[in-house]
């Protein structure tokens, strides 16, 4: 039963009822509801237990500011720790409270309340510091009880990323953002407007105001309709601008779209200019037991009664230090809520504000000191702000307004500066750091008229159009007198409701010497919850300011960091998950390998290579041993295609290679090759490989598979930055050549059986030479190198010929017992021969001498990369490790 739902009004669709469950119990709401509004409509007030003390908690806000009502979604779209105020209701939604077990009504963890005086700020750090915090952290986190990450990925759909480009990005589609969009779009700018709400309108959706003498909703609808006809406008709803990075690069997560298979889309937007029209967020007030279910932000109560057509209480007390709550009292009264009293901490209430609410008791110069009730609010204690006798007023709703904070989060992330505005008692944008401006409530323009004008003016100045016409609107002025905390509060007065941080905790932190505002934050954890202290942070600053007797301008808010609101990892990753992150690279014989039962794995640089080829029932070790024996005693073949291959052309290649290799390459004759080491200039080994000289000016450099890209970068950087006048051109030909390497004592027999016009005798084709010709009817380059230490012929062909070559090798080699060899056997064979094994002996700390390879260090060359450093290191007496055996 939606006992607290109003019969008419609101932006919900009573024709579309939606069923959902909360803590296992079935309820019904309407399309247009959030989970929070649906729960309130059903009379549910107790929704969660608090993080540390397991105190009963209800719904406090109506949007992203919600500090209290966190839920875990279960079922198909499982998700942890969502504010109930931002979960859009859908049919079949399943939600449960966090921080309590088994339920918020019966919660065993609430025993923490009894010992709360033993759990002050810093308690965990102080108590669990030996031997170290990390030993205790997991179980403390578990007891703290925020929901765990879901076990499984979403049942259906996917996430995606998309780039966006625009002249002007407008964050927020409230009155100021819409005015800015309208002016910029009419001037022909490429405009992107993104708003976190389900529908555009911002604060206008929650309030009862008129524009051009009609319900403001008409103006919103007309404006959106016009924007949507313009091709130069991209309009996103359900889209949070959550990060403002350098060079006007912003992140926008769009949660729903026309595509049902798309869960979320993260836009990465590069904007010419950014207009922050992010509105303002109401502050809570800080008094005793200000966390009891039934205590709510005034703006939230207003939203629930106007937008969601529900009564958040039957009898309300309004507690405020500013004018905006009077309109809330009016709206609640209109909906039939009995207004018991308005408690205003100011001694003087502006007459025109007082006049808006005629028949209600206004307790000027009074404060709420504490609330009464158990799991539900039953009344408040009210006393004069100067001290004196208190009285009790019964109520089931306390709507509080501590004033308004411009949502400067994005502005501040962009490194725009803030200043404290004494008149408005809040931090407002000061100097921009990038091409950005702030408009509307986000800029401290807290009345509708000012907000619309600032949006229009900002866009007009960007577009160099004349001043735009501003629609007429009704709104009363705003004034405030700050109240950072109620001094005579009785009971815990929470500054950060999500993290259970009280005024006492902040005072304790100050006493213990943590008096920098960033230290107070970390020591008390105030503002470090999922809500990032949107309703409470400035009260913390105010509380510190009062205690230290310094102006707020000198304290400053803590640094605002992205994300503005929680973002799912899926949205950030997009489709880049699993093998899509970086696709694997395959050679043309991958299928053959798989058919043959190869165990495939990544062998550097995303290449999938066969590790070994087990026969039925053969163990890993037996397989590797057999493959090694095949090469030592008979003949094996492996696919060497993934080796990095670069063709270097130009007059200065020889000279260049002499610089980057430790040995001399320039003396090679065409047709010859040489093994060499590349060192970095600090004398450590970068890579090893073979250089071949094709002719006077053409060379092939081969690198290890894993370092191919790094060597390419290394060579290009040297050529472009240090030797720009050297005549060397590098072409990556790794994928232009594949090779099958036949190795073992019978390798020459197999090559003969393949039929080739190349003379493969050791006189005609000695070690470290190569020849071009035909092999098995295919154009090929045969190179006599040896990776395994056995007689080897590396047969290089074009990739389109690789499968044919491979098949012919297996056919011609069959009488000789040829077997395919995986990477594992290759490594074993190399190590057995005492050859260098990159990544094993070479770990970035050794030089060639350490490896018994001093011979590769040229003594003839006066200079090459690494020479000076190797010599320097060996000049001293220091003992170095040496590879032996």
């Amino acid at each position: 039963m939606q006992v607290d739902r109003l019969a008419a009004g609101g932006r919900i669709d009573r024709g579309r009822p939606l069923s959902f469950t909360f803590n296992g119990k079935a309820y019904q709401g309407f399309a247009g509801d959030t989970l929070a509004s649906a729960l309130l409509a059903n009379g549910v007030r107790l929704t969660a237990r608090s993080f540390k003390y397991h105190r009963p908690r209800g719904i406090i806000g109506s949007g992203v500011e919600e500090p209290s009502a966190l839920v875990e979604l279960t079922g198909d779209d499982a998700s942890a720790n969502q504010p109930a105020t931002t979960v859009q209701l859908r049919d079949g939604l399943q939600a449960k409270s966090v921080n309590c077990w088994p339920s918020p009504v019966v919660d065993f963890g609430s025993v923490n309340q009894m010992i709360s005086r033993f759990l002050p700020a810093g308690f965990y750090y102080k108590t669990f510091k030996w031997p170290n915090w990390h030993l205790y952290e997991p179980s403390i986190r578990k007891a703290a009880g925020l929901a765990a990450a879901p076990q499984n990925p979403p049942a259906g759909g996917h996430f995606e990323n998309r780039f966006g480009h625009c002249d002007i990005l407008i964050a927020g589609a409230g009155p100021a953002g819409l005015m800015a969009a309208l002016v910029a779009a009419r001037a022909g700018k490429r405009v992107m407007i993104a708003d976190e709400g389900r529908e555009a309108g911002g604060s206008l959706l929650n309030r009862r105001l008129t524009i051009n003498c009609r319900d403001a909703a008409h103006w919103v609808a007309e404006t959106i309709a016009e924007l949507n006809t313009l091709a130069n406008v991209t309009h996103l709803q359900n889209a949070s601008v959550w990060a403002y990075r350098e060079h006007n690069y912003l992140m926008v997560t769009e949660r729903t779209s026309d595509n049902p298979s798309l869960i979320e889309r993260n836009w990465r937007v590069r904007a010419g200019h950014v207009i922050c029209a992010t509105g303002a967020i109401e502050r809570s007030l800080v008094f005793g037991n200000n966390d009891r279910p039934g205590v709510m932000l005034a703006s939230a109560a207003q939203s629930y009664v106007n937008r969601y057509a529900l009564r958040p209480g039957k009898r309300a007390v309004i507690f405020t230090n500013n004018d905006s709550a009077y309109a809330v009292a009016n709206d609640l009264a209109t909906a039939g809520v009995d207004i018991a009293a308005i408690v205003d901490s100011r001694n003087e209430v502006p007459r025109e504000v007082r006049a808006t609410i005629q028949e209600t008791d206004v307790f000027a110069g009074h404060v709420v000191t504490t609330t009464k009730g158990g799991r539900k609010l039953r009344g408040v204690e009210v006393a004069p702000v100067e001290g004196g006798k208190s009285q009790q007023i019964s109520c089931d709703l306390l709507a509080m307004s501590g004033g308004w904070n411009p949502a400067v989060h994005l502005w501040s992330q962009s490194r725009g500066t803030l200043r404290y505005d004494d008149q408005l008692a809040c931090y407002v944008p000061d100097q921009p750091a990038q091409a950005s401006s702030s408009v509307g409530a986000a800029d401290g323009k807290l009345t509708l008229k000012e907000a619309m004008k600032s949006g229009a003016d900002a866009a007009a100045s960007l577009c160099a159009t004349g001043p735009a016409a501003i629609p007429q609107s009704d709104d009363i002025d705003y004034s405030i007198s700050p109240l950072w905390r109620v001094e005579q509060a009785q009971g815990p007065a929470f500054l950060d409701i999500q993290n259970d941080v009280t005024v006492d905790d902040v005072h304790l932190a100050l006493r213990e010497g943590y008096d920098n505002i960033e230290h107070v934050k970390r020591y008390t954890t105030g503002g470090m919850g999922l809500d990032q202290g949107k309703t409470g942070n400035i009260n913390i600053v105010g509380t510190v300011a009062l205690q230290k007797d310094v102006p707020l301008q000198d304290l400053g808010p803590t640094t605002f960091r992205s994300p503005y609101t929680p973002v799912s990892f899926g949205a950030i990753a997009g489709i880049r998950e699993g093998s899509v992150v970086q696709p694997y690279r395959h050679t043309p014989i991958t299928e053959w390998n798989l058919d043959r039962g190869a165990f495939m794995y990544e062998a550097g640089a995303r290449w999938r290579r066969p590790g070994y080829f087990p026969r039925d029932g053969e163990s890993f070790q037996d397989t590797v041993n057999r493959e090694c024996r095949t090469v030592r005693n008979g003949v094996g073949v492996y696919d060497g295609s993934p080796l990095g291959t670069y063709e270097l052309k130009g007059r200065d290649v020889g000279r260049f290679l002499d610089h980057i290799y430790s040995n001399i390459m320039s003396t090679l004759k065409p047709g010859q090759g040489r093994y060499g080491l590349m060192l970095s200039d600090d004398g450590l080994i970068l890579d090893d490989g073979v250089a071949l000289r094709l002719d006077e000016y053409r060379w092939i450099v081969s690198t290890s598979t894993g370092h191919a890209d790094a060597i390419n970068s290394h060579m290009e950087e040297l050529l472009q930055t240090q030797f720009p006048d050297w005549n060397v051109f590098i072409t990556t030909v790794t994928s232009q050549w594949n090779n099958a390497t036949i190795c073992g004592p019978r390798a020459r027999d197999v090559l003969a059986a393949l039929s080739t016009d190349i003379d493969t005798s050791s006189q005609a084709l000695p070690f470290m030479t190569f020849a071009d010709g035909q092999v098995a009817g295919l154009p090929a380059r045969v190179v006599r190198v040896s990776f395994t230490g056995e007689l080897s012929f590396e047969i290089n062909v074009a990739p389109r010929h690789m499968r044919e070559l491979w098949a012919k090798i297996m056919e011609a080699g069959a009488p000789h017992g040829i077997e395919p060899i995986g990477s594992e056997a290759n490594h074993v064979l190399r190590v057995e021969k005492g050859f260098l094994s990159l990544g094993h002996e070479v770990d970035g700390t050794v030089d060639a001498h350490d490896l018994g390879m001093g011979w590769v260090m040229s003594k003839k060359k006066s200079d090459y990369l690494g020479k000076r450093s190797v010599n320097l290191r060996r000049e001293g007496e220091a003992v170095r490790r040496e590879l032996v055996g």
Partner: protein
Amino acid sequence: MLNIPCPFCGQRNESEFAYGGPVKPDRPQPDKVSNDQWVDYLTQVPNPLGPVEERWWHVKGCGTWLTIWRDTRTHDIVEEPGDAG
């Protein structure tokens, strides 16, 4: 994500580039410097609070190694600072 000006491709996203680090002084002639000077050359990398000259490789673009001046406090890409002398 920086917006890096490539002399050939124009303004491109940082994700198209590989970072090449701050520009070090020119490599000295190894046989013309003392041990200490050589070690300094290898290990002393400019790390100013303010504009730093650094290299980027447009590896997913045209392949150019380019140089920019970036203010490490703001990420702003700035003009080469004038000669103080």
